[in-house]
């Protein structure tokens, strides 16, 4: 495939290198002459030292025969224009834009950018994974096995509240072994009645999660 990468920052540089390694044809556009020369010294004469936002240079870089244009500069407005020019002026079948401000995602999509990569959104998503509201929290993986240490926080809607732990139908190979109540850890007994705000610690294989969620968090939460 012929990929045109615009923007020779860290992302564009490593992207270009990886693409070359996997056997694709790549041209990189970087408007800063010194930076362009530096990259060209290392990876060869596939660097065009011009502004990829300018239609003239996009054309010279071969945009009209590119399969993919990836706009990965640090500026959202530049990435938008690169993709729009590629799409509408050069009929590039697939455009990819790096988006820094997550709020721009809708606009970009609406204006015809095919794929968006938002580092901000990804990091945000990763952080939010650690503070789930209605999810099981993965505490740790257990060695080489498929087993995981999982924590479930019992919110008001949990079907487990008011039931004794012995009544819960645990998925196969999955065991509850402790309850944390008011900051105090207690070993689990089968006659223990679960309360709101309890934290239940379980060990089980990854694939038992859906059932575990149903039992401890509730059906509605399994949607997310």
């Amino acid at each position, binding site marked *: 495939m012929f990929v045109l990468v615009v923007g020779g920052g860290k992302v564009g540089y490593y992207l270009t290198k990886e693409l070359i390694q996997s056997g694709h044809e790549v041209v990189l556009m970087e408007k800063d002459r010194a930076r362009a020369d530096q990259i060209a010294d290392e990876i060869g004469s596939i660097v065009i030292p011009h502004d990829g*936002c300018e*239609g003239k240079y996009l054309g010279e870089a071969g945009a009209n025969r590119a399969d993919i244009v990836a706009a990965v500069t640090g500026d959202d407005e530049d990435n*938008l*224009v690169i993709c729009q020019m590629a799409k509408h002026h050069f009929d590039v079948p697939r455009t990819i834009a790096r988006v820094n401000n997550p*709020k721009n995602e809708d606009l970009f999509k609406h204006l015809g950018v095919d794929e968006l990569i938002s580092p901000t959104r990804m990091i945000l998503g990763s952080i939010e994974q650690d503070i789930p509201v209605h999810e099981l929290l993965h505490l740790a993986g257990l060695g080489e096995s498929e087993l995981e240490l999982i924590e479930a926080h019992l919110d008001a809607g949990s079907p487990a509240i008011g039931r004794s732990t012995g009544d819960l139908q645990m998925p196969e190979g999955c065991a509850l072994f402790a309850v944390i109540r008011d900051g105090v850890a207690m070993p689990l007994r089968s006659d223990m009645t679960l309360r709101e705000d309890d934290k239940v610690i379980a060990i089980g294989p990854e694939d038992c999660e859906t059932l575990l969620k149903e039992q401890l968090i509730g059906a509605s939460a399994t949607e997310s």
Partner: protein
Amino acid sequence: MNVVIVGCGRVGSVVAEAFDSAGHKVIVIDRSTTAFDRLPGEFKGDAVRGDGTDEDVLRKAGAEGADVFLALTEGDNRNVMSAQLAIEALHANRVVAKINDPLRAAAYAELGLATICRTDLMSNAILGYVVLPTTGSRGVVAPTGVHAGGEHHHERDGLRSGVRSGPVGLGREPISAPSPEPDSGREA
């Protein structure tokens, strides 16, 4: 009319002053407060510091539903993005983006955005003065392409409203009268 101007440079400040003294409600947005020094002392409009490509900033400044929205910063791409935000998200009525790269200006005119290109304006003025045939477009370019003004294609072209919204529409005709010269050698 409600007039929003992004970029308070030489052009932006002059246009802002003109709208203001004609009795319109003007909001000027610029990243730098020193740019507002260009506005006259008697300017009655709002001067808002902020990034004109940020939807939140534009909304907060009161740009929603503007009758006229002019993107006149020194950055072609910032103007393009700002203008498209104005059309797509803020439902501004008549939107013009300054795009100094003639090729980009023509491409966006084809996409349904009214554009003004200083490169074309100046080169035409110079060529005209020394009595040479002018080239390029004539300045403010209303959406020119086959796509402009139609109803059925806007999804594909990516410019939704503006072109067809309201009686004024996004620059169905140029704001300034076009010069009489024919468009020779239009495709750059």
